[in-house]
């Protein structure tokens, strides 16, 4: 498929987009291997370490010998405003690489207990600090990535399939069908997204378990988002339908179905990759917003959105600013998808206009 190679050559020239692709790759890989990478599971609490700051990693003992990476224990006390402050004690806990730790079902199949990085109890290592219940924010971010990164993809995939169906039929057959379907799309698009999000969420009974809530959110986001994609795809089908190679195929006796499968669909999918990539951020932000206000993923499960709900209280941000880390990861992911989406659009742009498919 030379057109694909051509577009890939152009995409690769955009180094920033390549970096973005790598960053996303790392994030999704981390999500997949969360159990191994993270020192703690997402439920692992420690009342003694509420809002404990990020743990310092030392290499030299107090009198300057090399002692390899180790962390110190912490002791909590209150200052005059009854706020917690932590002082390092002198107990030392070596930092273990691939040491034994809490066992888990690796990829849901094999039970294993190795962790990339861990410290023996009662020592605690908080790479990015702890939250209100002393849970490791770094671990929960990686575990939360499983939710936040996949909700966007599943939601967009459902919207994309729906969009292809509706947009394709409306674009290819035109006439009254096109009119009816497009009015429907406009109706869905016209409704203010967040209100619909809340209303649909209200329709979901509270007695669901977390997996069902996850699925419900994906479906809600998909329901709001598909209309936008359908319109983009319809526009593409309309322009593709007029191309001479489609008319030529028809004069050579190809049936409508053959023409759609051989000529219309492949182009539409590759051209709308950019629109899909640019739509994912909307879904990620949608989930984060819902979880932020307590209607999304419920505690103890982790998603970048519900981890941020703690940061809704300004005072907490003041003395534990590290609880804002999940927002950084949301921003990073959204930025990567935007960069990739723009690069994809520029890569496919000449083909979309049907003229400039010179390399």
């Amino acid at each position, binding site marked *: *498929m030379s057109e694909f190679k051509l577009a890939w050559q152009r995409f690769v020239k955009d180094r920033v987009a390549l970096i973005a692709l790598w960053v996303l790759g790392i994030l999704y890989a981390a999500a997949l291997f969360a159990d191994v990478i993270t020192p703690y599971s997402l439920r692992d609490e420690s009342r003694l370490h509420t809002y404990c700051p990020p743990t310092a990693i030392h290499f030299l003992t107090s009198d300057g010998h090399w002692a390899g990476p180790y962390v110190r224990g912490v002791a909590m006390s209150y200052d005059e405003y009854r706020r917690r402050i932590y002082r390092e004690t002198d107990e030392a806990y070596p930092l273990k690489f691939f040491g034994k730790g809490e066992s888990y079902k690796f990829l849901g199949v094999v039970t294993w207990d190795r962790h990339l990085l861990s410290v023996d109890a009662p020592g605690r290592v908080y790479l990015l600090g702890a939250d209100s219940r002393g849970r490791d924010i770094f671990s929960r971010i990686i575990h939360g990535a499983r939710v936040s990164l996949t909700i966007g993809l599943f939601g967009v995939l459902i919207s994309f399939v729906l969009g292809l169906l509706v947009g394709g039929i409306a674009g290819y057959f035109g006439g009254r069908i096109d009119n009816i379907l497009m009015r429907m799309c406009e109706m869905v698009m016209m409704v203010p997204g967040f209100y619909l999000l809340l209303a649909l969420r209200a329709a979901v009974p509270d007695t669901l378990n977390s997996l069902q809530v996850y699925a419900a959110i994906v479906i809600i986001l998909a329901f709001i988002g598909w209309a936008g994609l359908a319109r983009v795809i319809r526009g593409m089908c309309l322009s593709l339908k007029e191309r001479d*190679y489609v008319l030529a195929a028809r*004069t*050579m006796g190809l049936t409508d179905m053959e023409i759609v499968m051989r000529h219309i669909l492949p182009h539409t999918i590759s051209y709308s990759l950019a629109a899909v990539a640019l739509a994912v951020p909307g879904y990620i932000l949608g989930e984060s917003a819902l979880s932020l206000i307590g209607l999304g993923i419920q505690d103890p499960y982790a998603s970048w959105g519900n981890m941020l709900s703690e940061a809704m209280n300004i005072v907490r941000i003041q003395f534990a600013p590290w609880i804002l880390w999940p927002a950084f990861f949301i921003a990073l992911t959204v930025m990567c998808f935007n960069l990739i989406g723009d690069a994809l659009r520029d890569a496919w742009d000449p083909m979309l206009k*049907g003229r400039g498919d010179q390399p």
Partner: protein
Amino acid sequence: MLLRVNDVYKTFPGPVAALDGVSLDVHSGEHVSIVGESGCGKTTLARVIMGLVDPDEGSVIFNGHPLLTAHSRRGDFSRQVRMVFQDPFSSLDPRYSVRAILKEALRREPKMTPGEDFLRMRKVLDLVRMPADILTRYPHEFSGGERQRIAIARALMTSPKLLILDEAVSSLDVLVQQEILAMLEELQQRMPVTYFFISHNLRVVRRLSRKVAVMYQGRIVEYADRDTLFNAPSHPYTQVLLKAAFNYEVSP
């Protein structure tokens, strides 16, 4: 008699009727040209014949029976009547190699062995003076003129009896036009194909056709042999057209 256009009417939303009662017979070996200014309905006529546009009234008769539905055209008609379009950059699907493009022309043909496929592809490429080694390359690697040759080769894959060329050279550079027209002239001797040539350029029409139909506002105003039409045009509009095209003069 290859094809008969029988009293075809077609109107699109807009002031002028695209086809206002057009009848035309095309006989094998008698290369026909349709000439006229933009908006006279010549492209619409081609699309009605190929079934891309359904006429309001009238019919297209092929091998004795009228072609009414798209399905009726999938039989012999789609094999024996093929069309080449104007824009070379839009005639070939950029996703497919030349081989796949030519292969698609055999979609409705009975299955053939890959060897037979290759022989036929090589033959049509030779007819359009293109080397056989381009089969693995892709449309973006070719110039406008080369793409149009590949499009013509695709149309020749089923050795059609009638080849409709809708402004096939109009969007090419003036010198590349010469090469394509020379190739088309040569092709007339090498293959039993009849041309149905559509163009607004009277010089191109004079070079390639035996019979010429002049169209004006959806009607054929004059239909005659080439020599009589160019040397002794009877209809006033034809006279104006010829004077403007060859002497660049027009009465005020």
